[in-house]
Structures are given as structure tokens and as C-alpha cells.
């Protein structure tokens, strides 16, 4: 006769299930058995945030340079874009793209309709535009902080404005922007929770679905809260490390 090998995972699971069944007001076992749903939510949230941040950066960088160079009309237009999308709620922007655009026949007949009818893509577009507006101001601040002497030095050795921007000013400015970009990524992560209001299964969406399926009051929200907290904690850790690496030349040598 052989003894069954001890299985700590099964033991822990039995403990959680028993606790959920008779003592706890919150059904932890139910939340844990639905982990694939929350994993899907986590994946969607991360994808949406990364999409918004990176495409937002692609839009924001040229706009920030336009603002910084004070090119007459373009600079004002970029400023208006920033003002409108920073001054209105992200939720309304997402609604405008999802519900607002769908009412026009031109949009429904256009080739973009495959994208614009999907809530996921509407969220991705809204996050991109919103994050772009915030990132313009971040990059502009970074550009403003580049010392005049550096720019004069670049001109003195005969760099064209474009060359100076590419080789010297942007690398210098972007490095300065990192802490602010870290904040922006956490803001966008927080903002991304509105995807659940457009029926996307993001982290909060998974929680809402769990609640709806089992007529629960708040267990799903609790699980989502815990996941968001862990995520923010992990992101801040990574950001602190990245910042230390890129700012290494400014730190005194230790050891």
C-alpha cells in the first residue's frame, strides 16, 4: 500500500473552499475558480494601456516639437487638441468614439467600420488620443528643460535643427520625461477601467461579469481591486529601476 504524496496546493484549496463555504461572507473559492476570466481581463487591460501609451507617444512627440518650436498655426492647433482632450472625461471621449461615430452612415460604410464597431478598438483609440494629449505636455516640459547652452553648442558645431533635435535634444529631453511618463502610465492604467463600461472584459470587466453571473454584490470588484493594486505596485517597482538606470550618469559613484 502506498501513501498518497502530500499535496500542499490541494490542502490550501480545501481550506479556502471550506472557509468560503461556511465562515466567510465573501466567496473566495468562487473568485479563484474563475481565474481564467481575470487573466483575460489582465491581458486586455495591459494590451490596451500599452497600445495607448505607445501610439500616444507617436502622436505626441511631433506635436510637442511643434509646440516647442512655436510654429504659428500648428502650435495653436496642437494646444487646442491638448486642451480639449485633457479637459474632458476619458469616459465621454470613449463614448463619443463608440456611440457617437456609429450614427453616421459615412462611418458605417467606410473601411474603418471593422475597427470602429469593436468596443476594444474604440477604447484603444480613445486611450491613444487621451494619452497623446497628456504626453504632449510632458514632452514639451522635457524640451523646455533642455539647457540653452546645449542647443547653442549644437548650432555652433554646425548641426541642422533637425539633426540637433534627433541626436542631442530629444535624447536629453526624453530622459528628463521618464518620471512623468511613469505617472502617465499609471494614470492611463487607472483610466483604462472605463473599458468595462464599453463591455470590454478588462480587469474590472471580469469582476463585473463575475458579479452579474452569480448575482454577487461586490466580490468581483474586490478581486479586480486586488489585481489593480498588485499591478500598480509592480509597475512602480519596474519604473523606479528603469529610472535609476537611465539617470545613472547623474548619480554620484558609490563603492
Amino acid at each position, binding site marked *: 500500500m502506498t501513501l498518497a504524496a502530500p499535496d500542499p496546493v490541494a490542502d490550501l484549496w480545501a481550506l479556502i473552499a471550506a472557509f468560503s463555504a461556511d465562515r466567510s461572507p465573501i466567496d473566495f473559492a468562487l473568485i479563484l475558480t474563475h481565474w481564467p476570466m481575470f487573466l483575460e481581463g489582465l491581458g486586455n487591460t495591459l494590451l490596451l494601456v500599452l497600445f495607448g501609451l505607445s501610439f500616444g507617444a507617436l502622436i505626441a512627440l511631433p506635436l510637442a516639437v511643434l509646440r516647442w518650436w512655436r510654429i504659428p498655426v500648428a502650435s495653436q492647433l496642437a494646444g487646442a487638441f491638448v486642451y*480639449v482632450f485633457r479637459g*474632458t472625461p476619458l469616459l465621454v471621449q470613449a463614448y463619443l468614439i463608440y456611440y*457617437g461615430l456609429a450614427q453616421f452612415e459615412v462611418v458605417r460604410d467606410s473601411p474603418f467600420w471593422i475597427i470602429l464597431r469593436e468596443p476594444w478598438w474604440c477604447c484603444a483609440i480613445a486611450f491613444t488620443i487621451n494619452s497623446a494629449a497628456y504626453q504632449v505636455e510632458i514632452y514639451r516640459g522635457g524640451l523646455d528643460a533642455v539647457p540653452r547652452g546645449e542647443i547653442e553648442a549644437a548650432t555652433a558645431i554646425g548641426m541642422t535643427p533637425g539633426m540637433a533635435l534627433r541626436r542631442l535634444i530629444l535624447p536629453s529631453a526624453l530622459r528628463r520625461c521618464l518620471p512623468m511618463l511613469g505617472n502617465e502610465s499609471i494614470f492611463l492604467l487607472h483610466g483604462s*477601467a472605463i473599458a468595462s463600461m464599453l463591455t470590454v472584459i478588462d480587469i474590472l470587466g471580469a469582476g463585473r461579469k463575475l458579479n452579474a453571473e452569480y448575482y454577487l454584490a461586490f466580490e468581483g*470588484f474586490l478581486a479586480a481591486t486586488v489585481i489593480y*493594486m498588485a499591478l500598480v505596485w509592480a509597475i512602480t517597482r519596474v519604473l523606479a529601476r528603469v529610472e535609476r538606470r537611465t539617470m545613472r550618469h547623474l548619480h554620484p559613484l558609490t563603492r
Partner: protein
Amino acid sequence: MADLWEYRWLLFIGTGRTIALGLCGLVLALAIGLATAAARIGGGGLARRLAQGYTTFIRSVPDLCMMLLLFFGGQTLLNHFGVWTGWWDYLEINAFVAGAVTIGIIFGAYMAESFRGAHGSIPRGQFEAAAAVGMTPAQTFRLITLPQLLGYALPSLGVNWMVLLKTTAMVSVLGLQDLVYFATSAGRTTRNPFAFLIAVMVIYLLMTAVSQWVLARLERRYTRGRMIRS
């Protein structure tokens, strides 16, 4: 445009409700923020730890998630408590009150950080001077800290207020009939959501513009003591 004109009163009521909600939330957030900052700066070990836990917890969770958790979780908790003590059977929280309270709890954490930062900007020598002339901690707070705190905290409080104002757009999930709620339902009825959502954006921009104007004036008023007189 004709649709907007037809539903103008709905938009008007919605705007009023959103502003009222924002202001109630702001007052609660300022009170909670001030208390939390006080606990973090001058409180004992436990108070300090609790205040820090509160600010960290709130600031790491999306406001929409927090709102749903506080509203539905809070209601469940309250009813469990009522049954347990036998004081009440079932309580349904009013959506407006719930919205204002959750906004207050969420932004109290952000306000606390603003106040804490502002407190750090007051020169330390002033507290030493206050102690030297024999002021009690309460007197120091009332006469030295508070009047200057507002001036130093205003820029950051202003930013928080703008974020708070935009967060009010989410209360429609709690069932509160605010500007966004009315605009989306009117948009559905008229099949013209685009116009209504643009109107909502314009209204939010107007509220932001007015806030900026008021904040600039307040800032001038509260930093007068620091200005160099010529």
C-alpha cells in the same frame, strides 16, 4: 442642434447635478484630506500607519473600480452591520450621497498628499519660532500652518479638483442621473448621440475654464503674504 435645444432642460439639470456632486465631493475630500495629512504629519504611530495605508490603497486603484467597490461593498457592509446590531433591516443608499461620499473618499487621499507636500514647503524655522514664543500645537496649526497651507497647496489642490470634476462623469454607473447619464439617454432616444456627447464635452470644458479662472484668483489671494512688495 434641434435635438439639443429640445432636451436643453435635461442637459441643464444634469449639469447642475454634476456641479453639485463635484462640489459636495470636493468639500468631503478636503476635510478627509486635511484630517489624513494631519494624521500623517503629527499623528502617533498607529494613526500615521493607517493614514499612509489609506492613501496608498486608494491611489493604486482606478477610481471607477473604487467607486463600484465602495458603493456596492459599502452597502452590503452597512446592511450586514444593520442586521447584526438589529438597528435596521435594509438600507438603500441614495445615489447622490453615495457618489459624493465615494468621490470624497477617493480624492481625500490625493488631497492629503497635496496638503502634506504644502506643509513641507512651510519653512521649518516658523514652527521653531512658534514653539519658542510658547504657542501650543493647536495654536501653531491655527495661526501659523493653516493660513499658509492653503497658499502652498492651492496649485496642487487645483489639479486635483480638475481630475475630480472629470471623475464625476463616472457616477452614472451608480445609477445617478447626471450630465453623462442624461446625454447618453437623450442621444439614444434621438439617435443622435454624437451631438449630445459633444455638448457634454463642451460643458466640461466650460466648467474647467471657470475653475481655472477661480483658481487663479484664489492663488493670487492666498499667496499675497509671500509676494514681494514694491
